């Protein structure tokens, strides 16, 4: 086994662990946060009983997620009578896989020097360093959008093959909504690409280390505040969550394109939704919030503007970076949930009008202004 391969495996393991944990935890966070927002208690019933005792571990209802998962796994998998069984079976996978794969290109930490971390393995690694990113692709951002495109097909296929009018409607909505907002998303990001001059996500994050004007962190959101807002909006829309949950609007379409799905197939849709929250948050963090960067944190530790330094070992730096990234992602997830429980659903024509008549011109304007500014400054 080559060290490269080993490190990649470790990264993949980490990514999967984080993603699935986020998926599971977010189901609980969503409930609990919604409850707290609306003066309720929220999940508080499911418990684990320590065997042979009467001690019940409730833990604020954390086990609800586990119960959900078990339930989804163990439930009967109803299959509707459909004329396309293949499409029906393929749908959830096409919706789920791309979402998970996107994490491959997102950097979740700085540069890892395993040799420095584990001196005993230093020989094996031979001083090589690795960016903390599963697939350090130079076209990273484009990959994100490419996978997004595949996910659209998953949702549409699922809705179409269910032989259900509600699902069909949901699928049609999903198709048009996702395409519209993906366009907006791409255009908002173009400004950043102009500034950073790259689409490699790791390079973008590195651009955001340091500060501007001495006190502001050099994050994308500082350069491109409008793009940040537009991107987050479009991202939530991509995720098909309230206020953009038209494709699965309960009150209109039962469950939209996955109405006919049950058991774990439905679970995959739900899970992909929650993972996508994390993905959107991670992407936003990477693009606009400086990724794993903290102001004044360098590979050697904190270097404050006054010249004061706070030396840190490589392990500590890596740990701080990873935790920073996770914390940012988590806060953004929470923010998305906040929005989900704050806003009412759009009307369908408002939704598309919002994308094409408001977000798109704004993002183009943003792009033009950015382009002019970049041209003028360079």
């Amino acid at each position: 086994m080559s060290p490269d391969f080993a490190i990649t495996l470790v990264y993949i393991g980490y990514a999967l662990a984080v993603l699935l944990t986020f998926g599971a935890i977010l189901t609980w966070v969503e409930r609990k946060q919604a409850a707290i927002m609306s003066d309720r208690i929220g999940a508080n019933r499911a418990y684990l009983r320590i065997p042979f005792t009467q001690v019940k571990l409730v833990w604020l209802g954390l086990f609800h997620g586990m119960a959900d998962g078990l339930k989804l796994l163990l439930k009967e998998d109803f299959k509707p009578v459909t004329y396309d069984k293949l499409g029906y079976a393929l749908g959830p996978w096409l919706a789920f896989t791309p979402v998970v794969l996107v994490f491959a290109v997102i950097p979740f930490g700085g540069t890892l020097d395993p040799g420095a971390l584990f001196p005993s393995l230093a020989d094996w690694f031979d001083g090589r360093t690795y960016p903390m990113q599963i697939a350090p692709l130079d076209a990273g951002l484009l990959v994100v959008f490419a996978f997004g495109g595949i996910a659209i097909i998953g949702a549409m296929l699922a809705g179409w093959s269910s032989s259900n009018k509600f699902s069909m409607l949901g699928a049609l909505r999903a198709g048009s909504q996702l395409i519209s907002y993906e366009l907006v998303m791409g255009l908002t990001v173009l400004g950043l690409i102009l500034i950073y001059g790259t689409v490699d996500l790791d390079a973008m994050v590195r651009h955001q280390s340091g500060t501007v004007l001495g006190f502001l962190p050099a994050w994308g959101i500082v350069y491109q505040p409008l793009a940040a807002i537009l991107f987050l909006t479009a991202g939530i829309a991509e995720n098909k969550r309230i206020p953009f949950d038209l494709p699965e609007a309960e009150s209109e379409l039962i469950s939209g394109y996955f109405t006919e799905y049950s058991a774990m197939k439905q679970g995959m849709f739900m899970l992909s939704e929650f993972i996508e929250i994390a993905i959107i948050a991670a992407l936003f963090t990477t693009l606009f919030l400086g990724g794993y960067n903290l102001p004044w944190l360098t590979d050697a530790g904190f270097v404050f503007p006054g010249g004061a330094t706070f030396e840190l070992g490589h392990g500590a730096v890596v740990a701080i970076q990873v935790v920073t990234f996770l914390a940012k992602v988590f806060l953004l997830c929470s923010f998305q949930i906040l929005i989900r429980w704050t806003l009412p659903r759009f009307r369908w024509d408002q939704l598309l009008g919002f994308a094409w008549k408001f977000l798109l011109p704004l993002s183009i304007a943003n792009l033009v202004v950015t382009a002019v500014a970049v041209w003028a400054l360079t």
Partner: protein
Amino acid sequence: MSLETLLLYFFAAAALAGGVLMLIARHPMRVALALISSMISLAGIYAILGVHVIAVFQVLIYVGAVMVFMVYVIMLLDVRDPAFLERYGRAVVPSVAVAAVLSVALGAAVSRGRIMSADYLAGLHSNSMAASFEVQPFSVEFLERYWLHFELTSVLLLAAVVAAIAVVKAGRRHDG
């Protein structure tokens, strides 16, 4: 055989299988799925060849845009159409013959390897710069050497958009 070669063979086989399935599948949606799998496989091949930009755009444009549009239309026109069940027209034999003749002719050329001759390649290399398929060099090259083509395609796209709208409007007008 290296991992890359293995993957290459795998993707090639997958692309071929997708192409064959397109002919076999009855329902347009199945055909579309086969085409998508074929396209993704091709993207994989491009990625292995190191042309990441093309690979990504293959997925982004073909799968993410063209095929989504296609699937959308298939869903919209989801009528129980005899054309869905009637798989082939009458021109099976001639078409297969034409395709066979074409592929044999091209295949012969490929197998003789004339086009891959060293002189030819040398001729190509002579007027190329340090070719890199990295995104940044590629983009710079693209926009500096081929900016006219690029702009012309945008004109083409504009024309296409206008034409599409015109077609739709014409249909509407015809309707009433």
